[in-house]
């Protein structure tokens, strides 16, 4: 026997207002009116209870609302509504993957079989309302065996409402017909007939109704009598997470900007947490205030053309996914401190690339390593001190050019993989024979070269093509041993050729005690520049 189908409807009352209140929670406790419309004729499209008490009403013009000094006026923001809608979808997907995106403010979900996971229907309804409230939204939830009944009841009744199976008609009969969202033509017909409630509509004879208003009327009657069954049109879970914030006045202060960024990161982090995902990368696009260069230019061409806003992008890629919004904020702050936007910011768009959360298990045989999140922050702080490209892990290039390497981002994940590989190799007896370069302490350690970057210019006196005297950086001395030349060249087929003769020299510097000032240096003669350099000292 198949379990009985159970559907839920989630409805956000006063959605326009809640979308604004989600990104600016402090406005919830103030009289607030949302205006919309073509520029000269703004009208109030949404308002909260506090504004209503003060006397503001829907349809009032902006000029009229401005008379109420206590009322905060905000322009309707479609992108914020879309972000709020996406957040609402994330709430629903955190409960079940079977979700229908019915409208911006309404979602229908299939909760069949979830009772073993969450509890009874009322518990599920409370859980949905609780999760929505963490996203800053107050929702109506209705649960019924009939999807249309759930949708209509959620729009009509506040709070969690459970419609028992078979009692759909009882819940619907007192509701007005307009709750069924009939077309304007049908609505007029029902008005002429005096059919104002669902009960009245449900009591009409089906054949006569079909003859008079067609199949649409029959469908509405079925819904009004709690019998209108239909399958859900499932929405595919989105993998793109985006939040917007539009500022009334442009911001150029990093402190104020951090506050807004932190709020957006909190929202993104909460949305990804609800989906059991983590943030792998964050991209921020700032819409900058147009520059004032042409503010006083009143030429016709410029007046006709609408100035396009400049944008500033900032990317943050993380080696390991995280949900720690505070960590992300610190990283973003460091990034923006090192490379700030060149104009005040009037709009923020933050997008997160999602990834599965990192799952790790410690091993008894692998030593502890830095915490990846903490390490990322430490590296970012060090990069702010020494420069972006001066911290990382060196990677040798496939070249014979001396000192050929490039810096790559140090990632603890890569290091751990490499380290665990080496650790496992340690337990094999033939470690050294398997390609590892490590020489055990019993072997003779290798000489290190202390490199001079850039190479230090030097003067070298030759005798029989062999250096006998060298001087650099104000020091000069006699060459007692010389080894070379070690000739190498390359990239002559490109625009940066190189050619050098390398020498290992042991020098006794004059004027000082020979016992303490003998040095072993690596010199090189640049064949293209025809100059001598000191590349480093063996140390």
């Amino acid at each position, binding site marked *: 026997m198949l379990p009985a189908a159970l559907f839920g409807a989630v409805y956000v009352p006063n959605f326009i207002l809640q979308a604004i209140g989600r990104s600016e929670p402090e406005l919830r406790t103030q009289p607030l009116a949302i205006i919309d419309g073509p520029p000269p004729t703004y009208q109030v499209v949404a308002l909260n209870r506090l504004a209503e008490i003060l006397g503001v009403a829907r349809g009032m013009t902006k000029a009229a609302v401005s008379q109420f000094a206590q009322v905060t006026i905000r322009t309707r923001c479609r992108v914020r509504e879309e972000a709020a809608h996406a957040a609402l979808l994330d709430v629903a997907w955190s409960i079940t993957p079977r979700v229908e995106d019915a409208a911006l403010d309404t979602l229908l979900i299939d909760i069949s079989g979830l009772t073993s996971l969450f509890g009874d229907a009322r518990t599920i309804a409370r859980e949905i309302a609780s999760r929505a409230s963490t996203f800053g939204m107050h929702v109506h939830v209705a649960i019924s065996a009939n999807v249309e009944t759930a949708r209509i009841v959620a729009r009509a009744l506040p709070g969690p409402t459970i419609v028992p199976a078979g009692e759909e008609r009882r819940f619907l009969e007192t509701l007005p017909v307009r709750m069924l969202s009939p077309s304007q033509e049908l609505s007029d017909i029902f008005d002429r007939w005096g059919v104002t409630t669902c009960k009245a509509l449900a009591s009409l004879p089906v054949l006569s109704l079909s003859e008079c208003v067609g199949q649409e009327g029959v469908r509405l009657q079925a819904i009004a009598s709690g019998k209108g069954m239909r399958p859900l049109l499932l929405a595919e879970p989105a993998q793109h997470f985006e939040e917007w914030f539009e500022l009334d006045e442009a911001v150029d202060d990093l402190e104020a900007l951090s506050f807004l960024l932190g709020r957006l990161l909190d929202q993104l982090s909460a949305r990804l947490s609800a989906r059991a995902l983590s943030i792998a990368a964050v991209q921020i696009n700032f819409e900058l205030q147009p520059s004032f260069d042409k503010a006083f230019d009143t030429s016709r061409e410029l007046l006709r053309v609408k100035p396009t806003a400049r944008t500033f992008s900032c990317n943050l890629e993380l080696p390991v996914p995280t949900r720690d919004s505070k960590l992300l904020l610190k990283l973003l702050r460091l990034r923006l401190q090192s490379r700030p936007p060149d104009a005040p910011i009037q709009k923020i768009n933050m997008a997160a690339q999602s990834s599965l959360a990192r799952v790790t298990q410690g091993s008894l045989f692998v030593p502890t390593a830095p915490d990846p999140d903490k*390490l990322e922050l430490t590296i970012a702080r060090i990069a702010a001190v020494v420069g972006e490209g001066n911290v990382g892990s060196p990677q040798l290039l496939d070249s014979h050019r001396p000192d050929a390497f490039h810096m790559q981002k140090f990632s603890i994940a890569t290091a751990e993989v*490499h380290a665990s590989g080496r650790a496992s190799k340690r337990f094999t007896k033939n470690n050294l024979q398997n390609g590892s370069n490590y020489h055990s302490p019993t072997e*003779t350690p*290798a000489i*290190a070269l202390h490199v001079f970057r850039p190479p230090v210019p030097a003067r070298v006196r030759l005798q029989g093509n062999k250096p006998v005297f060298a001087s650099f950086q104000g020091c000069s001395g006699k060459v007692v041993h*010389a080894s070379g030349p070690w000739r190498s060249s390359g990239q002559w087929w490109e625009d940066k050729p190189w050619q050098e003769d390398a020498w290992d020299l042991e020098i006794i510097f004059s004027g000082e005690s020979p016992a*303490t000032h*003998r040095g072993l240096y690596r010199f090189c003669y640049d064949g293209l520049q025809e100059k001598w350099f000191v590349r480093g000292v063996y140390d």
Partner: protein
Amino acid sequence: MLATSNALRLHVESALAGRIASPFRFQEPQPITASVGISAVDQLAGGLPRGCLTEVFGGISSGITSLLQAALAARTANAEVCALVDAQDSFAPGCAQFAGVSLQQLLWVRCRNVNQALRSVDLLLHGGGFSLVAVDLSGAPARLVRQIPLSFWFRLRRTVENTSTILLVLSRESNAKTCASLVLRMEREAVRWSLQDRQYPSPDFHTPASLLDGWTTAAEMIRSKARRKNNVAMIGCAKTFANQDAETARFDLRSNYFLSVDSAGGNPLLPSQPNHLENERTQNFG
């Protein structure tokens, strides 16, 4: 009461005689040590103490960078993550890789001055988690390194305390004073050159120059928290020489391009000269 406690103490000491030397004497726990990667230095100092500051100093070509390289190789071979704060951007990754350092496990901070290096090491130690944090101040002007206040060294010492991090500081002179748990002074001794005054069958192989094979370095333990020195310094004496050999380790450093007979099996570039094969270079620099 006093007589009773004394009797009890004597009873316990006599019962534990031969097993525990002085059961009522507080003994500071010895730090856990890790191998330097050079057996002679390991035998001398017992390895690098974790949770402590170790200072290694020496003149030019004394081998301090080689010791750093060996320590990095040993730690990374043990699957540990290391960091190197390079005050003058003088680290050679090519040589390090040849010496066995796993570069993927090394965080290299390339600084331009001492100030950057000190700030970086402070951040790294507070970040935590590294097995070895090395600070190479050997390339920095000695005058600037000398100006680092002692309070900073104390701060570093306090930061690494009770952690498993080895803080290794390299410089040309000793600066950390009593903040360092282990101080090693390194000095270069005999340099080994080969192929001197040797005639080659063809000038295509080599010019008539000598080849650097390596040198011997002496590491003297100036101070060790784990191992007390046997000799006693006299007031007014700059240096004591009693048991000096016991506090000094000598070890050889080999050139990066030197391959022994066992590993190379002879140099194919040269005609058969069995007496000198072991000293031949087999690859060119770069």
